[in-house]
């Protein structure tokens, strides 16, 4: 479904990612791990198209994305929940969600006046905050909104960049449950950047570990044993 081949990318002249290859198959939850500053977010941004690909390729459903702007990638079915949530602070919750519908491939859905009910099914709390401005929500609520906004367009691949970072524990649990339910429904693949080892072990199908801008290990759940964790992940 998503295939990154020998990708080289970075900011301006500096190269952050070298020779990175990863794959995400339909319905899979693929976890991207590594210590801070190894290039996980950079990789996610390159997949979304926010950073220019210097070498290598990113393809989605057999379609080369190299020359596609972020908006076109979104409309092809890639949803993105960035680190730090990035909701539109001056827009209401409803408006944030309607912006989320923009990337929908279904024309009717894109022009819908009301947010489709099933888009909110996973986040019933949002409905009560419809007219509040995004910036007035708490961090956890903003994260739920960012999730709902990305899911509104029914993406086939969801990029989640540290979705539980800096959020109150009760909502972390909610968000983990949502990720599990997306996985169980099997319609959306997930590329998950996450620090919580316990959680990724319970939800991930496939794992990549990065170090210094390169993939240094890949494998399945059973192979992610304690020596691996000691070597690449503990600080």
């Amino acid at each position, binding site marked *: 479904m998503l295939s990154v081949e020998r990708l080289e990318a970075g900011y301006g002249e500096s190269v952050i990612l070298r020779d990175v290859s990863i794959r995400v198959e339909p319905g899979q939850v693929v976890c991207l791990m590594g210590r801070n500053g190894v290039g996980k977010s950079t990789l996610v941004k390159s997949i979304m198209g*926010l950073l220019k690909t210097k070498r290598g390729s990113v393809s989605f459903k057999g379609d080369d994305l190299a020359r596609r702007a972020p*908006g076109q990638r*979104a409309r092809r079915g890639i949803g993105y929940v960035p680190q730090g949530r990035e909701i*539109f*602070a001056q*827009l209401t919750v409803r408006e944030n969600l*309607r912006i989320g519908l923009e*990337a929908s491939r279904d024309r009717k859905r894109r*022009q819908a006046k009301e947010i489709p009910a099933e888009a909110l099914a996973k986040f019933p709390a949002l409905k009560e905050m419809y007219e509040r401005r995004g910036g007035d929500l708490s961090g956890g609520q903003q994260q739920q909104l960012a999730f709902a*906004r990305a899911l509104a367009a029914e993406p086939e691949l969801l990029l989640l960049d540290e979705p539980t970072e800096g959020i109150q524990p009760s909502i972390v649990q909610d968000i983990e449950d949502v990720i599990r339910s997306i996985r169980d429904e099997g319609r959306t693949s997930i590329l998950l950047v996450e620090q919580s080892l316990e959680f990724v072990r319970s939800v991930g199908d496939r794992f990549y570990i990065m170090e210094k801008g390169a993939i240094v290990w890949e494998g399945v759940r059973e192979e992610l044993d304690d020596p691996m964790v000691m070597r690449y992940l503990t600080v």
Partner: protein
Amino acid sequence: MWLTQLFNGLSVSSILLLIALGLSITFGLMKIINMAHGEFIMIGSYAAYVTQNVFKSALPKSAFDAYFPVAIVVSFAVAFAIGYLLEATLIRFLYGRPLDSLLATWGVGLVLQQVARSIFGAPNVAVTSPSWLDGGMRIMDGVVFPYKRLFIIGLVLVCLLAMYLYIYRSGPGRRMRAVMQNREMAACLGISTRRVDGMTFAIGSGIAGIAGCALSLIGAIGPTIGTNYIVDAFMVVVLGGVGKLVGTVAGALGIGMFNTLFEWWSTASLGKVFVFVLIVAFLQWRTMGLFAVKTRSLD
């Protein structure tokens, strides 16, 4: 008479507002300092002039009075189209570079002025107002509100309402606000930022065109008509705070009113000095303008 002065202040404010609206949204959305904005006023004025001439020569005399509503639409359309073209060919390469954009658009302004000189000649031309705008409303002895100015105020209110509905109640407006707040994220959610930028710049230019059409009612039209207003319009944008409709309205009212009142109390040039001194003093106190977006909510 103070009532007359208040009315004149309101009239000046309304035209300033129309001009500043476009500046405010292009600066807010794209960080472009558009020095050519005044030339879109000029384009709108000449569009009204051409429309008038077409009506004069091609249609019976009885139809002449109907030219002005048509001229408003034509002014908007022509300025909109030229704005769209300018954005697509030049402005889009200058995003996020305010200083470069200032120089480049200033150059564009000079070119447009020269084009106008070549087509219409250097001397000013006049537009004959439709007869239904002649005269005025008599409020009391010695106080008459000219219909032309009343009409302009009404026209500005209609434009303002249309802008409000567009920005805050329509799909394209919602996309525009999203791009204004967080360009990268808006793009990641499937919004074509290119299309939003193009439309916004064109609409801002179109409104300046309407302002030019309105100005043709109250004075002669020349190639440099826009330069008379551009500085004041920038003051409105800075005073009001960037990218907020309500700020632009307040800024225009403030500058238009004070300008008129100070000119009444002193002389024209001294009045302008007072206004600028006030603005500078005010901006020392509130650097972000009257209605600044609170920084925390921008994070």
